[in-house]
């Protein structure tokens, strides 16, 4: 495997629910619950799941836009730092899944600060990562010219140049005046827009163009890592294809790593190299893309893949239709969270939470019956098999 770009361990994010007469906290929405994630340099990691599975929250936590309830996040960790922190963290949370106490958090944070020299490091981190949102309407400030929208991150962070500072930070220059204008024009031309567009307001653009602008804003500071939060969900298929191919081109040119969050498995298949499947705040399956689509093991992944309508009337396949709705993340089911809708569910599923385990090389699944399913079932659900079955 190549170099680790980002590593998160034990990430949890609980949102409090307030209510009742006094408005006290009644419970928590378990948006992300004990997730370990590793992102390698240069890859496109796809995160897929239905609404409410916590994929967006995970994206924000990974970018440090919201503080996780628990968990530690490393950006380009070196070995010693990582082991030091990981050890500390496992010591603190040795009692199993629970929220860290205030003192413990403090210990963790001070250690982190010592290692990271927090604030400066944070600014450096900010300049290396970017995000693109789903909603092209609200992701651009309606009262800013496109020029200013794209220029904003450059103004704050500058543009990286060759070489590194002595303290491991990127060397960056801030652009001004004509140089800045020229730079922005270059970027914009690359996005398939022209200089005329620079001096307009966001509401004058179509959805696809806005998304191009949002990508231009993200790519302008030449980041190393971009979180793409459903970047094409609100777009038409023809525009989606344009954006996807643009993203691919940019990745090759700038050697940027993507985290691609979406509910659309077909898009995931087209763009990503590795896929994480989430259900109710937990990772249920993780594998390389082709592996996952050919041998889906977790019953949820199988159902997801079989639920996708394939644009060819000749594929008339037996599909797995899950009954019922996704349970509320405020009150997730005990044991395996999927057991309420799972066709293989046995008693153990409702009592014991399955751990992630490696079933095939690089293919991690959280299911009690993963081996059995692999033997008996996945032959009928894998996408390759479907195309063979087809008329």
């Amino acid at each position, binding site marked *: 495997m190549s170099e680790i770009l980002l590593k998160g361990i034990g990430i949890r994010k609980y949102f409090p629910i307030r209510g009742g007469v006094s408005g006290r906290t009644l419970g928590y929405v378990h948006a992300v619950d004990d997730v370990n994630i590793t992102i390698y340099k240069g890859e496109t990691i796809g995160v897929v799941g239905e609404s409410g599975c916590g994929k967006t929250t995970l994206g924000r936590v990974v970018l440090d836009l919201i503080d996780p309830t628990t968990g530690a996040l490393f950006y380009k960790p070196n070995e010693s730092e990582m082991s030091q922190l990981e050890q500390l963290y496992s010591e603190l949370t040795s009692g199993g899944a629970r929220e860290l106490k205030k003192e413990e958090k403090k210990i963790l944070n001070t250690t982190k600060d010592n290692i990271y020299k927090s604030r400066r490091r944070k600014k450096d981190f900010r300049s290396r990562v970017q995000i693109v*949102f789903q*909603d092209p309407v609200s992701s651009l400030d309606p*009262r800013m*010219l496109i020029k200013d929208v794209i220029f904003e991150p450059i103004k704050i962070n500058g543009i990286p140049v060759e070489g590194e500072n002595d303290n491991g930070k990127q060397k960056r220059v801030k652009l001004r005046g004509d140089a800045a204008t020229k730079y922005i024009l270059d970027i914009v031309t690359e996005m398939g827009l022209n200089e005329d567009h*620079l001096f307009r307001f966001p509401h004058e653009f179509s959805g696809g163009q806005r998304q191009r602008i949002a990508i231009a804003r993200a790519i302008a500071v030449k980041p190393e890592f971009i979180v793409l939060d459903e970047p094409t969900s609100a777009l038409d298929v023809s525009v989606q294809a344009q954006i996807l191919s643009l993203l691919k081109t940019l990745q090759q040119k700038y050697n940027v790593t993507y985290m691609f969050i979406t509910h659309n498995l077909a898009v995931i298949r087209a763009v990503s190299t590795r896929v994480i499947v989430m259900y109710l705040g937990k990772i249920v399956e993780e594998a390389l893309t082709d592996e996952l689509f050919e041998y889906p093991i977790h019953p949820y992944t199988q159902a997801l893949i079989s639920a996708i309508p394939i644009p060819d009337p000749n594929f008339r396949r037996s599909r797995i239709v899950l009954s019922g709705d996704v349970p509320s993340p405020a009150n997730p089911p005990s044991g395996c969270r999927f057991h309420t809708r799972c066709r293989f569910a046995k008693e153990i599923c409702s009592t014991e939470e399955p751990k992630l385990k490696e079933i095939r090389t690089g293919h991690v699944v959280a299911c009690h019956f993963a081996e059995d399913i692999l033997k008996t079932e996945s032959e009928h659900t894998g996408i390759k098999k479907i195309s063979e079955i087809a008329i």
Partner: protein
Amino acid sequence: MTTESVGSEFSRALKKRLESSKRSFYFLTRSPLATIGLAIVIFYVILAIIGPRLAGGNPSVMTAYPIYHGQPIIFNPIPPFEYAKFPLGTTIGGYSIYEGVLKGARVDLELASIIVFSGALIGTVLGSIAGYKGGALGEAIMRGTDIFLSLPYIVLAVAFLTVFGRYESVMIESLILIWWPTYTRIVRGQVLSVREQKYVEASVAAGSSSLRTVIKHIIPNSIYPIFVQISLDFGNVILTLASLFYLGFTFAGPGFAEWGNLLSRATSAGTGGAALESYPWAVTIPGLVILIFVLALNLFGDGLRDVLDPRMRR
């Protein structure tokens, strides 16, 4: 790319900006009523600036003319258009209505501007804090807002004037105290909704500090409803001021020029009937002056709301 073309880019930018503001103006002209309202408001503002100069003397005190051409006019007011010196006639006490209206414009607009703009400023600051920071402080601010919104404004102003004495400063302070909560509410609501917008998050993700986020994104996007509210509130403040002066709850001394006060000179409470019968001009003219100004403000505010409402733009 050469420097020339870069320069031309910026001239183009300027042009676009102008075009977009022209577009807003265009929207305004779509509603002729709003344009009329704006014109009248501008006329009144000009009146307030140069009016007292036209009338001469102390800009906030009307001159009394007890005797004119040998005739006592204290108790027998002169109708309008009879003498060039009193184009709008006189009122009881021998005050020229023309002079009163001109000088009153300055006084009323001055007082109302101080009250409305201070209220808006306080409200905006507190509202932004309550909206952006939230937490206990925000909660406290909103509870305070609730309290002041539950106070009947004329009654509170009267209570203040009675307790602290009848001074101009007390009046201004009490009315500011009444007028800030509306703005706090509006700004807080706006900030809360703007804060959730993705572009704010994008800006934070790009490393912008929270001060920068507030100044660059949150305030520009939440400030516009304030303008509408100011234009509508201005009229309300004028009406409240006029009511207070008319009822005599205030510091108005002899000859103090204010529209409500002018009306009270025409009809000391209880003799309204007699006044209307025998010298209607003294009642109608100041009333119409107030009515037209407030109506113009309302028309303008309504048009402004349509222009600034993003739903209209799309």
